[in-house]
């Protein structure tokens, strides 16, 4: 990206030092840093334009409602949703997937039907379905992955063969392996067997343009804080006709059309799924983040990150004793690895002393770790502000860490 320096200048935190060393932040997949426009939008809302939304009849409430609802338009644009009412705001991806398990799982699936997930899901796309299985008699099926860390397509197809599968809930990009799953083929195969498809786009949306209509998805979710936005806000997109048919998730204010003690009726989507005062300031921040990402453009983002990932794979592979975990053809800017002489935690502690932030552990994907025969990995992940120099710093330090544990 030609204006990498300009992008970096937008992220105030990148000027910070850690124990006297320049911060090298390689943990964006856990949560990304925030650019100035996001910070400013949130501060501006609190300083100049804030009240509860959808309730007040006064100027402040109306303006704040407009600003918050503009985030819905931005999210709809980001995903190329047909209808802005298809955007439901949640707290994060985790809540979006719990909403799915509750409202789609209990509301639309019948006991005896099955949900398919993959062997490389984040816990947030495992546990809600386990809870559904135990409470509602749904079968949970797990599509295996290959040793390269790709979805095993013949096995996936076979899991749908009996026509019992009502929903495929699958990651669009693994937070451990960096693997993209082939979204269009997944929806084709699933739809041919009568199953709907929900993608966990928590990682994918950060790195790639997502067009939910082009991939023919039924549901898609993401979480704001990984997309350079604030914590506390996420998005579930769903097809209008499905959302209309689904029962609400949580009950409370804002989600009803009329209430009596005998019977209440639900508001239209999306409000049916948005009980209570939402994350107003965070929604405004998310809009700023979406605008920011779109101004840079996904072509530039994808090109920058592909170059970084290639560079990282080349540099890390060249270090003796390093094993890269996941060798998918189609992958994004997340690289997990192990080192023969040091455990991931020890690596992370030593890197941290040089100001280099990586994640170490099971990455909220314990079943995947078991499949890989590992307890933990170290993971470097990249964002729009990551530089090749930072990857070189990682590689050079890893070489020295291996010597340290000689």
């Amino acid at each position: 990206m030609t204006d990498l320096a300009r992008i970096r200048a937008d992220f105030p935190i990148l000027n910070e030092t850690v124990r006297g060393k320049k911060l090298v932040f390689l943990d964006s997949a856990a949560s990304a840093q925030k650019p100035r426009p996001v910070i400013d939008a949130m501060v501006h809302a609190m300083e100049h334009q804030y009240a509860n939304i959808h309730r007040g009849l006064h100027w402040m409430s109306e303006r704040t409602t407009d600003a918050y609802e503009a985030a819905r338009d931005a999210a709809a644009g980001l995903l190329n949703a047909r209808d802005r009412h298809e955007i439901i705001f949640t707290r994060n991806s985790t809540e979006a997937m719990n909403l799915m398990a509750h409202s789609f799982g209990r509301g639309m699936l019948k006991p005896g039907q099955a949900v398919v997930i993959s062997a490389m899901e984040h816990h947030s796309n495992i546990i809600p379905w386990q809870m559904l299985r135990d409470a509602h008699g749904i079968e949970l099926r797990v599509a295996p992955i290959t040793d390269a860390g790709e979805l095993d397509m013949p096995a996936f197809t076979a899991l749908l063969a009996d026509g019992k599968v009502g929903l495929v809930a699958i990651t669009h990009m693994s937070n451990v392996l960096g693997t993209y799953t082939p979204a269009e083929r997944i929806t084709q195969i699933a739809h041919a067997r009568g199953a709907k498809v929900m993608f966990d786009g928590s990682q994918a949306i950060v790195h790639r343009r997502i067009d939910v209509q082009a991939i023919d998805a039924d549901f898609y979710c993401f979480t704001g804080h990984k997309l350079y936005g604030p914590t506390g806000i996420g998005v579930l997109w769903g097809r209008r006709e499905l959302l209309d048919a689904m029962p609400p998730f949580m009950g409370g204010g804002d989600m009803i059309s009329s209430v009596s003690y005998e019977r209440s009726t639900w508001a239209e989507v999306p409000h049916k799924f948005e009980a209570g005062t939402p994350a107003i300031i965070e929604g405004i921040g998310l809009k700023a983040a979406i605008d920011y990402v779109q101004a840079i453009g996904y072509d530039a983002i994808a090109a920058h990150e592909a170059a970084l990932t290639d560079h990282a794979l080349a540099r890390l592979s060249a270090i003796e004793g390093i094993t890269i975990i996941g060798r998918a053809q189609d992958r994004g800017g997340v690289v997990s690895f192990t080192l023969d002489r040091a455990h991931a935690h020890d690596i992370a502690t030593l890197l941290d002393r040089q100001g280099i932030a990586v994640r170490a552990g099971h990455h909220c994907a314990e079943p995947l770790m078991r499949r890989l025969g590992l307890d933990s990995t170290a993971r470097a992940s990249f964002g729009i502000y990551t530089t090749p120099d930072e990857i070189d710093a990682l590689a050079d330090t890893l070489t020295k860490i291996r010597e340290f544990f000689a």
Partner: protein
Amino acid sequence: MFDDVRDLYNQTILTRGRAPQHMHRLAAFDASAKGDNPMCGDRVEVWLKYAEDGAIAETGYLARGCEISVVSADLMVEAVQGQSPADTKALFTAFRTLVQTGECPDCTPALAPLQPLSAVHKYASRVKCATLPWLALLAALDGVNPSKPASSE
């Protein structure tokens, strides 16, 4: 490059980490328990054999985890050798204070084998690595069901 971490990764830790002395399962044992740190994936299993007076006669462990958790388990085996269950618990309390604060007001000679871990307190995220094997040991002493791992604190 890593001079500033030599307090944690000192010679004892590095040497033990490379070649733990007591990492093995006991063929015959009176109690056992597992420890599991769900935040990071460190796992340890501890086996105990009691002497006739109820003191710890032998301890073995298997650990999969970082250098700090493995070495902590290895040093723990030496520290608890011959100790009664009550003394072992008191020792853990003192050890936990040591790794949390770097200070050791109730230090007894029994704590000496654990001193190489005293710098852990400067690395807040690593304290749980050091205490994990002890939590498994205490669970074994209390006869906690071995199929249900003791969680890190």
